[in-house]
């Protein structure tokens, strides 16, 4: 297990460690979490606008709606972050999704994230270590079925030098 993940696990609690995070080799067997968060600590320059990355992996065999799904009724993937002392955060920047359609209806195109995806957070941070708590809201499906929306607790840990 990576050091960053271990540190984040200590902060978030042992109970959620294996459920929500881990190394990026997690599998979906008997899993009710379909997205894994890579809580690797990062280093950014202090006092300068810089990018902190939130790296996620959708478990193999599943996909989640992108931040901009094709239908207003579909639940977009979204990060909600709490304010953190000494950190000015701008709006998170989401990656573009990829087109996906179910085999029985190839003309109905969806916009999804599968595999790895990274949400970028522009920040200006004072010197020191920072932790931003938040959640990733997502709704996952496999090749034929969809699962209720879920919230994944995340903690962005970075040092400004």
């Amino acid at each position, binding site marked *: 297990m990576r050091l960053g993940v*271990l540190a984040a*696990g*200590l902060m978030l609690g*042992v*109970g*959620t*460690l*294996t*459920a*929500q995070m881990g190394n990026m080799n997690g599998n979906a067997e*008997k*899993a*009710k*979490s379909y997205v894994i968060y890579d809580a690797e600590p990062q280093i950014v320059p202090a006092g300068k606008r810089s990018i902190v990355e939130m790296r996620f992996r959708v478990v193999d065999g599943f996909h989640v709606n992108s931040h901009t799904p094709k*239908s207003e*009724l*579909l*639940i977009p993937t979204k990060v909600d972050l709490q304010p953190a002392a000494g950190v000015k955060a701008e709006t998170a920047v989401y990656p573009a999704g990829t087109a996906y359609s*179910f085999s*029985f*209806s190839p003309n*109905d195109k*969806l916009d999804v994230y599968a595999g790895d995806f990274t949400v970028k957070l522009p920040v200006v941070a004072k010197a020191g270590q920072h932790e931003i708590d938040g959640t990733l809201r997502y*709704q996952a*499906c*496999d*090749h*034929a*079925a*969809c*699962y*209720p*929306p*879920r919230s994944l607790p995340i903690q962005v840990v970075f040092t400004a030098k």
Partner: protein
Amino acid sequence: MKRNALVLGVMIVGISLMLWAGWHNLRERHIAMQKAEANHVVLTPAQPSQSAQGDDSEDVDPGAKLRGKTAPAFTLSTVDGKQVSLADYKGRPVLVNFWATWCAPCKIEMPWFEELRKQYAGQGFEILGITADVDAGKDVIAKSAQKIGVTYPILLSTDKVQDAYGGVEYLPMSFYVDRDGKVVEATTGLSSKNEIEANIKKIVASGSTTADVKGGE
């Protein structure tokens, strides 16, 4: 003589200071070790009950438990506020379909349901769409159903009903109930239109019916 005594005294004091410093350092290290021990956290793998993983419910075909059994009874509100019971459709073949506004595959098959409902209406076939949305309001559900183009009753689910039908852990889920009220087939996930029609044909054809019996008994 005096000078020797002074040197000896200085040496004794120096050695004493060195011994005290050594002992003090040892004591500080011991205290620090104790503090570190107190703050030490041992990470152990979460038990299934502690985590979001390890739930077996998704490995089991929920429909398997209900096949061949009487469909669990329910009375639910429609989006218009009417009360609808499964018992209201006694003697008729019914498709009980669980769906949600956020479920993309549900919205693919629902127009097929609407089409097949019209096709088999003559045999008394009906569809009850039970929405498993927990957050969506009635208006959103009604608008969604209208947008999809379905005219069959849309009912608002309850936990009790979902539990009775196997937990409804994922969507869509469909239960094909024959005229005797038995679950003939249960499917999870998006099926092909042909598979859906084949299942409808099963419930239209099976079970006792007074409407379709010819020649009496």
